[in-house]
């Protein structure tokens, strides 16, 4: 137990907005919202110094349910928007949130390069292995034999995307997996992810009770990872490639330098305008 000298100025409830979530009852995203607000309270951040940026999808509604700054942006483009914000306003704490479809499919290329650039962002991917908002189509992390959608009546036949292994290969500086059924544990990981410099990738297994009802079983199948956090990328890669995707914990902490662009102007507006004079 840690008795801190200074109590956080705001409670978790203060980071929630007055808007009532429209997620289905039983959806894991409620817990993720709770974990995020607990983490923000624990970090003692003032609301005006935090921005939550999202793309499109059920999980991407989360900025509206917080009382910090937020931007519900374009499908798959949460990371570029967040990157732009963070490099322009490095003083802000920028959290990016979205789902597996938004982040790994249409946003897949941005995901790779956000990991590679290593801007100081925390990316929360609420992974339910399905496109829920559009009524249940297979996403990049959907198991190959999932046949509940009429679009893929015999399963996708495609190996699921492995987000954490890809994040590691692409250069993410902090890699963790959490479970929405463990809100306090998830709050802890989000807190650590925000505190760690660079691009922090947090995959959160967040059940979709409507289109992936079998994910209720995660309550019994998800477990703590049987390894300690490593700073060795090779060791992390070996472990991730052997993992079944249901182990939780902080799996890798890197030490790459973060990307900070030069914010000093290299020329004046007058200089720029002079180049266009005809």
């Amino acid at each position, binding site marked *: *137990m*840690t008795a801190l000298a200074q109590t956080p100025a705001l409670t978790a409830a203060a980071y929630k907005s007055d808007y009532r979530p429209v997620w*289905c009852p*039983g959806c894991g995203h409620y817990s993720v919202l709770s974990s995020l607000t607990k983490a923000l309270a624990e970090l003692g951040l003032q609301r005006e110094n935090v921005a939550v940026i999202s793309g499109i999808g059920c999980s991407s509604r989360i900025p509206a349910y917080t009382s910090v700054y937020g931007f519900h942006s374009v499908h798959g483009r949460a990371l570029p928007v967040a990157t732009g914000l963070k490099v322009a306003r490095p003083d802000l704490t920028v959290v990016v949130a979205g789902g597996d479809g938004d982040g790994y499919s249409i946003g897949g290329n941005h995901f790779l390069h956000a990991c590679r650039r290593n801007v100081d962002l925390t990316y929360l991917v609420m992974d339910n292995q399905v496109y829920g908002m559009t009524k249940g*189509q297979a996403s990049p992390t959907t198991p190959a034999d999932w046949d509940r959608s009429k679009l893929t009546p015999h399963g996708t036949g495609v190996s699921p995307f492995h987000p954490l292994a890809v994040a590691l290969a692409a250069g993410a500086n902090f890699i963790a997996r959490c479970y929405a059924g463990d809100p306090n544990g998830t709050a802890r990981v989000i807190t650590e992810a925000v505190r760690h410099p660079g691009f922090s990738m947090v995959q959160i297994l967040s059940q979709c009770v409507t289109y992936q009802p079998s994910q209720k079983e995660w*309550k019994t199948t998800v477990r703590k990872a049987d390894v300690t956090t490593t700073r060795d990328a090779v060791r992390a890669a070996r472990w991730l490639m052997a993992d079944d995707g249901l182990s939780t914990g902080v799996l890798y902490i890197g030490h790459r330098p973060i990307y900070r662009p030069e914010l000093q102007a290299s020329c004046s507006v007058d200089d720029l305008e002079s180049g266009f004079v005809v």
Partner: protein
Amino acid sequence: MTDDVKDANRIDSVELFLAHALTLENEAADGYQEIGDSMAVHNNPEVAGLFLQMCKYGRMHADEVRELATGLDLPHIPPWEYSWEDGESPESASMDKMHYMMQPAQALALAMKAERQAHAFYAGVAASTANPRVRELAQQFAAEESEHVRLLGEWIAKYPPADDNWDYDPDPPAMPE
């Protein structure tokens, strides 16, 4: 629970106990509010009303704990370091058991489970603490939770059990294309 774990989670100061009680009651109320709001959004006003009523009681209990803590310096405890048996506040009704078509008897059964868990927590503290004042408070809170369980039992008896086809929806949202 092993003896080692029991010792590790033992609560021996009034401040620490009230910090736990305050969080337990606040999170119970927040959880009920969240579920009630969710049911209201999904057009289940009867169940929404029940959960919002539970929320109201939870807020009253949190106020009572706050009153008891007046003048005391409660420690700050990170959410993941509370002495909850399974890592989560014991009176939190589990969101993953919710369904947009659930009926009052089912909702009250979930609330009953949460109240029983809260009773077990307080009774556990009373049984394990070495501090007589903490024991006295924990016994008092456990007795209150027992009373809630009794009242909920009476409430549940007023509602018929859920129908066999309680979750049948002629126009369901689950229509994968």
